[in-house]
């Protein structure tokens, strides 16, 4: 009798745990096939499961990735709203200073791309990627933690984090920040049960806004609107406002979608290590470049 009970328990346990096991078992590799995996090499459903459940109120907690594809936030040629592709509708409203500064930046991508020998991208030497570029280039997995006073976002990209205060403090005036910071000073507030608006100032001018070298000044204010559509989907809209560099605000992202990932999702390590960067530049980037070879 006891044996039958134990056997039944094993069968039931097998049935209960089978779906979890299947979801996390690594299948054989298939050449050329894109099968999304997390940092522990476990298969990640793509797109993520849709529960259809309503969004929890005032809660962004969880791990999120761009959807429908996890690489949809790479933005190699600039943010989705304004890629550097030469199309008139994607031209930014530069001030004369903005245009001049942009042309002084020498990126690897976009209409102003240059070979590596002429590149002056600060992220190429592993300077901090900074904000807002951390969301406008290689936006991969992110995770939100929150309590009553703070919202923290951790990023796969460059393995960095931001802290957004929501304890009632005022956003500093752009000319009144203690010191410029790579990720600035951020204040957030809920404007309704599902929409969290963040304003950020005090951003270090050495950073680029995006991967094609769009510039910013010390006057930059970035507004992020994180809107949780439902339990499974969130949208990010980002507005760039910098009167020194742009004649009017512009939306780098407009309702860019992210999907909630499983709780077991492990965010992959993706670090810009100086030693690796130097080795890459010496071994690959410079030899490949005809101009660099002549120097």
């Amino acid at each position, binding site marked *: 009798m006891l044996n039958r009970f134990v056997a039944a328990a094993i069968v039931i346990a097998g049935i209960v745990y089978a779906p979890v096991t299947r979801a996390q078992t690594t299948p054989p590799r298939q050449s*050329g096939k*894109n099968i999304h995996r997390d940092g522990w090499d476990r298969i990640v459903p793509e797109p993520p499961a849709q529960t259809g459940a309503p969004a929890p109120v005032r809660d962004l907690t969880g791990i999120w990735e761009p959807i429908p594809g996890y690489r949809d936030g790479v933005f190699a040629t600039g943010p989705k709203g304004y890629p550097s592709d030469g199309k008139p509708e994607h031209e930014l409203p530069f001030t004369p200073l903005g245009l001049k500064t942009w042309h002084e930046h020498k990126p690897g991508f976009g209409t102003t791309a240059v070979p590596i020998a002429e590149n002056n991208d600060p992220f190429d030497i592993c300077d901090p990627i900074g904000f807002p570029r951390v969301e406008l280039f290689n936006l991969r997995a992110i995770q939100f933690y929150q309590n009553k006073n703070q919202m923290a976002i951790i990023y796969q990209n460059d393995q960095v984090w931001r802290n957004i205060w929501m304890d009632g403090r005022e956003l500093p005036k752009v000319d009144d920040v203690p010191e410029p910071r790579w990720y600035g000073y951020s204040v957030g507030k809920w404007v309704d049960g599902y929409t969290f608006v963040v304003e950020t100032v005090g951003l270090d001018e050495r950073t680029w806004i995006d991967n094609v070298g769009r510039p910013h000044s010390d006057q930059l204010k970035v507004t992020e609107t994180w809107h949780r559509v439902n339990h499974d989907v969130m949208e990010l809209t980002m507005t760039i406002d910098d009167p020194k560099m742009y004649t009017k605000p512009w939306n780098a992202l407009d309702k860019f979608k992210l999907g909630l990932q499983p709780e077991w999702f492990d965010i992959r390590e*993706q670090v810009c290590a100086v030693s690796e960067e130097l080795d890459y530049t010496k071994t690959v980037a410079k030899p490949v470049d005809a101009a660099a070879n002549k120097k």
Partner: protein
Amino acid sequence: MRNKLVMTFLVAVALLSISTSLFAHHGNAAYDSKTMTVKGTVTAWVWTNPHSFLKFDAKDDKGNVVHWLGEWNAPSTLVNFGITAKSFKPGEEVTVTMRGMAKSGEPIGRVEKVVLPDGEELSMGNER
């Protein structure tokens, strides 16, 4: 006819345009649009950011050893295509197809696919 173990260039040039690349932040302006396939022996598989790269030796048509280098995507992308830190071992014979060759003329290309000694093929398909 050289010994089969002696590595030779196999295929030459095809004119294919490079698709929009997801190649980190350095760009691909230093590569042309040519395609080349080379059979060689792995000397190192460097699994790093911003890009991984495969080092392999092959002999040219005069018998001189050429130190090749195949640049590939970042680990965070490659893992999703079944390409990992352990995919290649020094001493293995591989056949490397590169699409986009160094404009400098150096033996460097952007990897499109690699065929392992047992015939298994590693690639990102049509994605880059």
